[in-house]
């Protein structure tokens, strides 16, 4: 412990905020729910990207909670148009900046609804036209802003208001869309997935993507306490379990090829992840279909693990167990 002479009284909290040793592109006072994974994800992305960026934001929670009239939580140039066109708006901004000879990087932000579904063709067009834009999809696996409707990113068997478990089926009937592979099929220089549970991995990938001249894509897994049915305090814990079970693989693809993955030394059983969330609670009922769906999700995780070669038989400093290991003063690796 410290001696009294080393201790200072912190009174001037505004001064501390002003001299924070990191860039806060998304500032406090935003109206995200307690424990929001998306708010964390967006702050981490901008922390790594820095102030010299322009952001085009699709409709969604992120847009709504960050800009309640007449305030804004953004400390970078930021524009919102409609749900489906963030990629198109970003393309236009990038073309305009290019015409003006300016160097600012253009980012496009969208949720899974605005990326997997509604804005899908705009994203595809942006990639195809080779715009110098980093598109970041904050994936919380349903339309949370409008009341938790299923999206094509919602995992199989999850409960949403439009995929309720009942007599006909156990939650969502269809599978989560493999968006990263579709993006990679555009032959883009860089596409990757990451998670708010691993901020160092997330920031590293943002810096990497920013440095690339051309279209890049980042899928950020962000738990939603409200939509997933968990306590806000468990956001990181749950995001980490999604990675450690293999349900959300952390991968990097260059020109369509998998070049790097976050390996799993000891993959966890998917029930460890499922049991933490209300949206999977029906999978733990007496219904005989519950076991079948749990096994189905385990099979999907195992499929990810084998498809991307996630499993390793030795501990690695960058595997899903060790990548977040800390010691005095910060991360080990």
């Amino acid at each position: 412990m410290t001696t009294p002479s080393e201790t200072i009284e912190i009174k001037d909290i505004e001064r501390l905020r002003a001299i924070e040793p990191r860039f806060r592109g998304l500032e406090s006072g935003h109206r995200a729910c307690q424990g929001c994974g998306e708010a964390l994800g967006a702050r981490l992305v901008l922390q790594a990207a820095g102030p010299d960026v322009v952001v085009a934001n699709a409709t969604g929670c992120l847009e709504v909670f960050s800009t309640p009239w007449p305030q804004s939580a953004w400390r970078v140039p930021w524009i919102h148009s409609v749900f489906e066109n963030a990629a198109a708006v970003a393309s236009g901004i990038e073309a305009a900046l290019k015409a003006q000879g300016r160097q600012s990087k253009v980012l496009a932000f969208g949720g899974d609804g605005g990326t997997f579904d509604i804005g899908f063709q705009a994203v595809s067009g942006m990639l195809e036209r080779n715009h110098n834009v980093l598109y970041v999809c904050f994936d919380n696996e349903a339309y949370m802003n409008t009341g938790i409707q299923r999206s094509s990113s919602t995992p199989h068997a999850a409960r949403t208001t439009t995929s309720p478990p009942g007599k006909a089926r156990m939650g969502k009937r269809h599978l989560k869309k493999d968006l990263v592979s579709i993006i990679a099929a555009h032959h883009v220089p860089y596409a990757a997935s990451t998670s708010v549970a691993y901020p160092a991995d997330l920031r590293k990938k943002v810096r990497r993507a920013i440095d690339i001249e051309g279209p890049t894509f980042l899928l950020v897994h962000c738990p939603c306490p409200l939509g997933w049915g968990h306590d806000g305090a468990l956001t990181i814990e749950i995001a980490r379990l999604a990675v450690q079970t293999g349900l959300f693989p952390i991968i990097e693809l260059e020109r369509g090829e998998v070049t790097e993955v976050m390996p799993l030394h000891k993959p966890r059983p998917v029930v460890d992840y499922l049991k933490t969330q209300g949206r999977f609670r029906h999978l733990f009922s007496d219904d005989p279909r519950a076991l079948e769906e749990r096994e189905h999700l385990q099979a999907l995780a195992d499929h990810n693990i084998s498809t991307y070669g996630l499993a390793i038989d030795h501990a690695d400093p960058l595997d899903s167990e060790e990548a977040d290991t800390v010691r005095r003063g910060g991360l080990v690796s």
Partner: protein
Amino acid sequence: MSAAKKHVMTRGAWAEPGSSLAFKTGTWRVEAPFHQHRCAPCHDACPAGEDAQAWIAKIQEHRLQEAWEELVAANPLPAITGRVCPHPCETSCNRGSLDTAIAIHDLERFVGDAAIEHSWAYPWLAKKGSRKERIAIVGAGPAGLSCAYQLIRRGFAVSVLDALPEAGGLLRSAIPMTRLPRDVVDAELKRLFALGIEFRPRQQLGRDVALEDLEAEYDAVFLAPGCQQSHGWDVDGATPPDLHEGLHMIREWIDLGSIPKPASVVIHGGGNTAVDLARIMKRAGVAEVSIITASGLPGPDTDPDDVLNVVPREFDEAVEEGIVFYPHHTIKRLIMRGSQTTGVEIARLKKIPGAGGKKKRIAFEGTERVVHADMVIPAIGEIVDPAGLEELLDHQPYFHPDEWGRLQGRTTVLAGGDARGDRGTVSAAIGDGRKAAIAIAAMLDKRSLPDESRERIDVEALNLNYFTPAARAEPPKLKVAERTDQAEIIGSLSEGEVFGEADRCLSCGNCLACDNCWNYCPDNAVLKTVELASDGSHYVFDFEYCKGCGICAKECPTGYIRMRPEE
């Protein structure tokens, strides 16, 4: 808002562009995070009162001298305790739930040796000689020396009396050199006495000096005479004619180098004396050495209250050297041929809770067996030599003071160390000395005693996701064939191993400065500062914006952040 505010006309309305900072999301909060330093299990378990977590944190920062200064705030003899302490800190270490406990005793030994090598100065709490009061301490063993150190660094004048010509007590007389080299004892004690402690050798209470004289001459007296008289020992009234007592034999061996060498020997007892003597005799050439003890052997399933009272590694080494143990046994009968001992009859025994919760020992009928031995040696402990202390002891074998060493009905006479009867380790004696010094200072200042109770943090309060298994550093050890009566068996860790080992510390209940709270807060409500905040960490909660989600508390690896309901 400033005068520079702009009204922006849009097609729908006009807006006052503003920062969301104007919106204080802190009003949403129903629970608030707070920092709380809790007592790490190692600190809680240390009989000497060391906060191992605190000084290991200094090693993690590669500040060895500061680590030593933090350590000697409680214990002035780390080079000694690092070698001889049975380290209950490691038994309680939360890291044991992840892989293996931190090698705290190896770190302590390294830091203590470094202090000797570099002659680091003990930190003072008051100006030397700033107090006029004088305190007498009887016994220059660990308890007396610890008390003297704590008093002199508070400005008092201190005299230490001992019956022997040299200070050290059982550090010199009872612990084999293979465990504690005498140059280490010499170096630690020389530095301690250099602080200005007066040493009065050859002063035996009741022979050379009377307690009344000390009470008249000094403002307070701390009695730490140790246990110098053997416990009475017999088996149903019978004793071997050639009875030698264990501790006495070790003393003779240390002083004179002589030890009897029968063909086989049985030692009765379950402490360091029994194990040390067994190893000395085995090394001297006694072919069969057995230890009969009512306690159990160290092991994961053994009740900690029912285990050999020895340093665990000493037990391992004794087994390596071929000592045979009979745990949970007692001697029922001596077998004699004429006046010559030929063996003992032993039986299985267990300490079982009896009526009133007091444990009683039961020897089970039908489990008797015979162990042949030419010599039977009791090593079952010692009692206080009552000479000069008859009135205080009142026919009791030990003193029974409170936890601060205060004896009932006496204000200026305190007692501690082995003479309490409920201690038995160097570290516990050092703790007694420290507490008695605090009690004496409080008594002289007419202050109340400090509250040393603290909430302890257990492994459930940590987030072990942020730690990964790492092998514990093991110090070099002499092979059985290379062991002698003099050479120290266990070696030291290297500096690199020490830094690596310290990095394994989980920092239970104290900030690790890992940035997790700062990294994970979705609301930028944790501010990082290069200055230390008033609570000792580098992070400050901004309650204007904290929504109370609890992520910081959940993801704090060390349990330093907790949540409480908002008032």
